[in-house]
C-alpha cells in the first residue's frame, strides 16, 4: 500500500475507486482483509471457501463503489455484515456461490461509526476488548452467542443444538448481549468524554 493510501480515510478510497482507481481497492483490501478473512475462517473453517468469499466480497465492493456513501454508514460494519451474511449463507447452503440473496441480511441500516475503526490500532484495541469481554462471559452464554453469530443460528436452533430449553437459551443470549452492550456503551461514553 502506498503511503498516501495508508492514511486515506475509507470515504476517500471509495471515491477513488469510483473513478476507477484499482490501487484504492488494493488499499482497502490491505486495510480490511485480515479481519474479514479471520471472520470468514472462523465461520467457514475452510481456507479455500474463505478465500473465495473474501475475493467475491471485494469484487462487490469494487462494483458497488459508486453507490456506497461512507457518510451514511461505517465501512467496517458494512464489510463485516456482508462477510458474515455471505459466509453463513454458504455454510447453510453448501453451494458453490456464496452470494446471499437474503435481503434482510443486506439491508444494513447502520448508524454512523462511533469510533474511527479505519485506524488499525483502534480496531485492534476494540478487538482485544471484545475478545476479553467475550472470554469473561459464562461458558453457556458465550456458547449461545457464538452459535448465533458465527453459525447464524436462531434461538430455537441453538436450543435444538445444545439440548437446553428454549427459555434458557433466550436468557443466555440476552444476558450475553446485555453484557456486550454494556461494554459498548462504556466505550462510547469514554469516547464522548475524550471528545
Amino acid at each position, binding site marked *: 500500500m502506498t503511503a498516501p493510501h495508508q492514511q486515506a480515510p475509507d470515504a476517500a478510497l471509495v471515491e477513488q475507486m469510483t473513478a476507477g482507481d484499482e490501487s484504492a481497492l488494493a488499499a482497502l483490501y490491505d486495510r480490511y482483509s485480515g479481519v474479514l478473512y479471520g471472520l470468514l475462517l472462523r465461520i467457514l473453517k475452510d481456507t479455500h471457501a474463505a478465500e473465495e468469499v473474501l475475493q467475491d466480497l471485494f469484487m462487490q465492493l469494487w462494483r458497488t463503489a459508486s453507490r456506497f456513501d461512507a457518510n451514511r454508514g461505517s465501512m467496517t460494519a458494512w464489510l463485516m455484515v456482508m462477510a458474515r451474511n455471505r459466509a453463513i449463507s454458504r455454510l447453510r447452503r453448501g453451494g458453490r456461490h456464496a452470494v446471499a440473496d437474503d435481503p434482510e441480511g443486506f439491508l444494513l*441500516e447502520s448508524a454512523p461509526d462511533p469510533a474511527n475503526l479505519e485506524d488499525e490500532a483502534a480496531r485492534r484495541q476494540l478487538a482485544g476488548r471484545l475478545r476479553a469481554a467475550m472470554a469473561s462471559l459464562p461458558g453457556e452464554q458465550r456458547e449461545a452467542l457464538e452459535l448465533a453469530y458465527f453459525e447464524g443460528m436462531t434461538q430455537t436452533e441453538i436450543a435444538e443444538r445444545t439440548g437446553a430449553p428454549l427459555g434458557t437459551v433466550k436468557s443466555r443470549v440476552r444476558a450475553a448481549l446485555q453484557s456486550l452492550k454494556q461494554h459498548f456503551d462504556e466505550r462510547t461514553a469514554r469516547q464522548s468524554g475524550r471528545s
Partner: protein
Amino acid sequence: MSERHVNPEDPDLYALGALDGEEKQAYEAHVRGCVLCAAELAAARERVALLGLAADPEAPGPKVKERLMRRVRREAGGGAPWEQRDARAGRKESPILAGWGWLTPALALTTVFFAAVAGWMGVQDARDLQRLHGVEGQLAQAQQHSFEIARTATETENLLGMPGTVRVGLKPMPGMPDGRVGVLYNAKMGMVTCAGWLPAPPAQKNYQLWLMPMKGKPMSLRVFKGEWNEPMMMKVPVGMEAKAFAVTVEPMGGMPWPTGPMVMQGAGE
C-alpha cells in the same frame, strides 16, 4: 406501540439473527412504525456487526489479492469475464488447421462441448452478476433509508429533549380499524414528527393526518397509505398550539380540510 417496545435486547437479537417465529414478526411489525426503535436497531446493527472483530484476524495468502486484482483488471479493461470466455469459445478456426480435414468432426465436437461449458459458465456468472446488481440496488436504497431514519431519529431525540415537547398517542375511533399513530410536537419550535401504521385505506382513498389547532382551521400534516413505514419531521407555524391530532380518510392526494370520517384522534398527554 406494541409491548415489544419494552424489551431492550430485541434490537440486538434481531440484528444478530437470533429472533425467530412470532418474536421476529412482532419485532419487525413494531420497528416499522416506531422511529425510536428503528434508530435503536441501526445502532444495534453496528454493534452486532463489530462482534466479528472478536475473531482472530488472519492474513489471507498473497495469491488471493493477486487473483482479486486480476479479476478487477479483467472486468475494468476487457469486458465481463463471460464475454471473454464466449469470445474465446466462438473464435474462428485457425488457418493452421487447414488441410487437417479428418480432425474437423472431432474438433467440432470439442468446440461444441467447450462452447456449451463456457456458455453455461457465462450464464451462471451473468445470473450471479444480475443478482448482485439487485442486491446492490437494495443496499443503496437501504443506505438512503438508513440515512433518513438516522436523521429523523436525531431530530426526534432533539425534539424529545426540548422543554414543551408533548407526546400524542392517537387512538382509533369507535368502530374504526385498529392502528397505531404517534406524534411528537413542540409548538415553540414549530416541529412535529410522527410514525405509525394503519390497515390499507378503502379503494381510491388515503389517510390524512391533521393538526387541530386551538384556533383556526385544521392543518394537513401528511397524506399516507396504510403501511406507513417512513417517519417524517414536519415544520408547522411556530407558536401554533395543538388541541389535538386526527387521522381522516380522504380522496387520493388529500384535501385542504377534513372531509372524510375520522379514524383516529389523540390529544397531548
